[in-house]
């Protein structure tokens, strides 16, 4: 059976977590492309500048990051015009256990799921099954 695939954008200030996400995506064989960003603002610029083909793109977004954190990223992302946001699904992934943060993140329309760190291929394959 061939897996359903999507483009992936990883946003995490930890190089190790980016590396792990990258390797797991490759191992699970669910990514048509992978772009990693250590700075949330660079990821946002990348999304703004990409020609939107409305292909499914999953953003794996870390929450606690210096300067622009996941919540700031989501606020900025949701201000973008709809034609830019089309096809994007945001998955927050974090080691944080803070309830207030979690609830705030769930309140963003573009967030489809919250995943606990470390990422596992099982969790990612399950995620792909949930995306229409």
């Amino acid at each position, binding site marked *: 059976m061939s897996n359903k695939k999507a483009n992936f954008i990883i946003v995490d200030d*930890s190089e190790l977590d980016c590396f*792990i996400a990258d390797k797991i995506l490759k191992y699970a064989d669910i990514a048509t492309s992978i772009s990693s960003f250590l700075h949330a603002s660079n990821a946002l610029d990348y999304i703004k500048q990409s020609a939107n083909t409305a292909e499914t793109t999953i953003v794996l977004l870390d929450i606690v990051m210096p300067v622009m954190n996941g919540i700031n990223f989501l606020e900025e992302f949701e201000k973008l015009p709809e034609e830019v946001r089309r096809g994007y699904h945001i998955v927050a992934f974090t*080691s944080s256990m803070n309830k207030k943060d979690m609830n705030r993140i769930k309140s963003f329309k573009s967030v489809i799921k919250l995943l606990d760190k470390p990422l596992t291929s099982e969790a990612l394959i399950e995620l792909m099954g949930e995306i229409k």
Partner: protein
Amino acid sequence: MSEKIKILYIDDELNNLVGFKASFRLNYQILVAVNTSEAVEILTKNPDIRIIFSDQRMPDKTGVEFFEEIRSWFPHPIRILITGYSDIEDVIQAINRGHIFRYVKKPWSDSDILSAIEEAHKFYLANSMLAIKNEALQKAYDELDKFAYSVSHDIRGPLSGIMGGINVAKHLNDISDIKEMLGLMENSVKKLDAFILSMHDYYTVQRGEVRIKEINLSELINDLKELHHANLIESNVKLNVNISQIEPFWSDEIVMRLVLNNLVTNAIKYQKHDNEDKRIELNIEVGRGHATIYVRDNGIGIPENYLNEIFDLFFRASTQDVGSGFGLYNVKDALLKLNGGIKVSSVLGEGAVFEVTIPNK
């Protein structure tokens, strides 16, 4: 005692005021008011009044009414009523409702007043100690909240990274991938270790006693250079130190080490990677009763809008390199304990200057 206890006495009979003042002014600073509005004025101007005596029977309002009224405005002074037996019902009620601490019967004797003052003052001191402890406790609670928040990110974060790395390693076949990952895992372990060390610093600053001794600056600097030697070489950063000292410097050595170590660590961390000439200037000047330390680097600098926040617990202004958000908070708190201070100025992209002042004890 360095300063006399301030006491306010309110009575509509001028003779009583004069008599009271004459009897106690040697040992206490006595302020007097002939009516309650004058009393309020005096209380507003003298927030350090510790004890208030008030007569019960006054034309504009009773002493009990007055105390009831000012209780929420001036909660700290201890309230004592002076009254005759005929008002005893009012007094009992007022004591039971907590408006007054005790009462002195009229006509009073000096010893009645003196013992009232003594008891009231003990009570005042106990209350103020409690207020100070409460404030410290509140601060500790607030920081505990921040800790609980940070623990999930700063401790669980690196751990979950390492755990993820171990999981991924099972699927990695390329040895260079494994080596790359081990390097990244090593950084996570270092980050966790640094966090725990800073936490220890934090505890030392918060709970440690100040121990003043003569500071041997050149020894301190040698230790500092040794501590950062490998790091300086690896990061290709030059550290220049100048000490000018015209008098012995007395301070807390642990605080001095913590401050210098944190500032130098930051100056190494936040360099411009592509800069060929990475420099840190450390100047220490001791003279005229204090030491001034400048740590100047030509690194990435700090955005102006973050300059006020960099000393906050767990605040991080940069994504460059690892940081716990502990360092500068510990520095500021440690300096506060020595009545010292820290200032920062920076031009983004050109570097930062930290200026520390520490009084010579």
